């Protein structure tokens, strides 16, 4: 009881914004002075910016906490402390994101030239060469995986929402959950185990990669389509039945057009998820250095595998390999970002017009 009363009286006095700014400036000064002393006295060889900045933040939070505790009371002080910690966590998460984006762009731009998009790695040692074969491989394998997954995924979702009841629907829902959790490398091993039985243990081809990827893609498509179909109001279905429209036409002409925006968004996001997969393709699609248009014959490199192998198997003139790896990463990121953007635009344009 007493603590409530004190905090009530204390809440009239509070730390002003100006005081907080002054505390901030003070803590930056303290921290930078400390690291400057370390630098001048010769204990550290250079002025360490990152630790200085981190120390400044810690000093600020500690000072603000103490100040608030004296002026505003313990409860308010803890509240302030938590607010700064939560904000700090958010900023902390932005650091890797910014770092990845900046490093990918600045390193990838070096080989982001016409040569990269027009040449493969055939007979290339050291500098030069490009990623044409990997871009072709990515487009073909991803398209094949989409052609397998999208019909199966959407039809399964229709089954689960519109038809499914009883034990079979429950079993399928459970298995979709299981599929969501399959590690990507296990999907690759499955595709290998499947095709090795028919074609022998040396089998490597593009369509195997597509099968592995569709194993990862189907559950994502089913889940998102299911969510979207469930959002379609039942009144629409009932109105259609009342007009004597058969069930299959109701689904095709009423349910799907109403939810098509969400379904396409989900599909595009699923594609952007699998286009960056590396591990299964490393196992079943293998790698090649030249352009291969045939999904059903011969090894096929995709962009993520290209990035990995360029980094992992550096030859003479290592920098050329690392540059190519970064450019491959940049192209991959651009494709993923473009797909996400397309998904948002489609969702906007295809959304059913009506009063909402």
């Amino acid at each position, binding site marked *: 009881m007493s603590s409530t009363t004190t905090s009530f009286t204390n809440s009239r006095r509070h730390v002003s914004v100006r005081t907080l700014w002054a505390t901030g400036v003070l803590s930056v000064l303290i921290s930078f002075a400390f690291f400057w002393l370390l630098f001048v006295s010769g204990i550290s060889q250079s002025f360490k910016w990152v630790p200085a900045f981190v120390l400044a933040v810690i000093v600020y939070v500690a000072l603000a906490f103490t100040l608030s505790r004296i002026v505003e009371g313990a409860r308010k002080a803890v509240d302030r402390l938590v607010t700064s910690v939560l904000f700090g966590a958010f900023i902390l998460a932005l650091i890797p994101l910014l770092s990845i984006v900046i490093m990918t762009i600045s390193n990838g731009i070096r080989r982001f030239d016409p040569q990269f998009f027009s040449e493969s790695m055939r007979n290339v040692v050291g500098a030069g060469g490009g990623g044409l074969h990997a871009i072709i491989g990515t487009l073909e394998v991803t398209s094949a995986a989409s052609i397998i997954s999208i019909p199966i995924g959407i039809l399964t979702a229709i*089954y689960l929402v519109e038809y499914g009841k009883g034990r079979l629907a429950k079993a399928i829902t459970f298995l979709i959950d299981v599929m*969501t959790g399959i*590690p990507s490398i296990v999907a690759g*091993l499955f595709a290998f185990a499947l095709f090795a039985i028919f074609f022998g243990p040396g089998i490597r081809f593009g369509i195997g990669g597509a099968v592995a990827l569709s194993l990862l893609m189907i559950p994502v498509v089913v889940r998102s389509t299911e969510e979207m179909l469930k959002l379609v109001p039942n009144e629409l279905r009932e109105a259609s039945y009342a007009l004597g429209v058969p*069930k299959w036409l109701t689904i095709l002409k009423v349910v799907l057009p109403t939810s098509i925006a969400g379904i396409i968004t989900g599909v595009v996001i699923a594609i952007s998820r699998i286009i960056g997969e590396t591990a299964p393709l490393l196992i079943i699609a293998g790698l090649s250095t030249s352009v291969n248009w045939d999904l059903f014959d011969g090894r096929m490199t995709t962009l993520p595998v290209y990035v990995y192998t360029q980094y992992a198997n550096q030859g003479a003139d290592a920098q050329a390999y690392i540059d190519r790896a970064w450019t491959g990463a940049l192209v991959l990121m651009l494709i993923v970002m473009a797909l996400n953007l397309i998904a948002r635009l489609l969702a906007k344009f295809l959304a059913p017009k009506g009063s909402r």
Partner: protein
Amino acid sequence: MTNIAPTASRIKSRLGDRVFSNLALISGIVILLVLAAVAVFLVAQSLPAINATPEDIGSGAHTLWDYVGPLIFGTVWAAALALVIALPISIAIALFISHYAPRRLSQGLGYIIDLLAAVPSVVYGLWGITVLAPFVQPYYAWLVNNFGWFPLFAGPVSGTGRTVLTVAIVLAVMIMPIITALCREVFLQTPRLHEEAALALGATKWEVIKTAVLPFGRAGIISATMLGLGRALGETMAVAMVLSPSVVISFALLQSQNPTTIAANIALNFPDASGIGVNVLIATGLILFVITLIVNSIARVIINRRNAFSGAN
């Protein structure tokens, strides 16, 4: 939702209806068959590995279990470390977005965090090894010099920074968006009345969160954690690229001898494997599948139980 269709007895069943419903049914059954095939083929290809001789396995292990043991340890250890790093940060970010950020900004901020999930894992690997590892190495050296007496930070320090701690940081960044997104959803579902009741009693914002939001979201946090753990267990490329692997069971975070993970081990050794060696690797993959299956099932059970609860409210 399904019972509202005209019953077959009244109207003679139409051809289109039958074709369409069977098509939907068949694709559902395809999924059943595919999963059965996954299980059958993986088990079939794993069986020869059980009797593998030391020559087949290589790396000095006598039996399959000798070989898998350190890998299982490495997988769980790296994923657990990643979780320890990611969980508090994710909950903090989710709270910040759901309860602290201005309403108008919060959706945009959530989208920024989701962007982290869109980065392909191979890019994380490349970033981890070329940017993060050299950046953290001096701090590792400092830790070993000053806190080397603490078992986790035991020396000698790795000269490249390619240690299990670096891997854990990369994995933490990768699973953070998953945990954050789920926690955010759960925190936003906190009943408004609970929060307002706490505010009316004079609680500060933090006390509202402590007394109303976090208890309500506990089940959600646990299941989000499990899903993040499942992702971290199965992650391949980031680990394969960043870690300098060896076959050891060691808790030391900063040495150049690190336990590797099942997934990374498969990715690194599969292209060169032959004969029974392939079966051994597939067997380890099967074990990984079982581990992630258990973790994900726990998460699903918790989510489903929660759904049953919220339906009653």
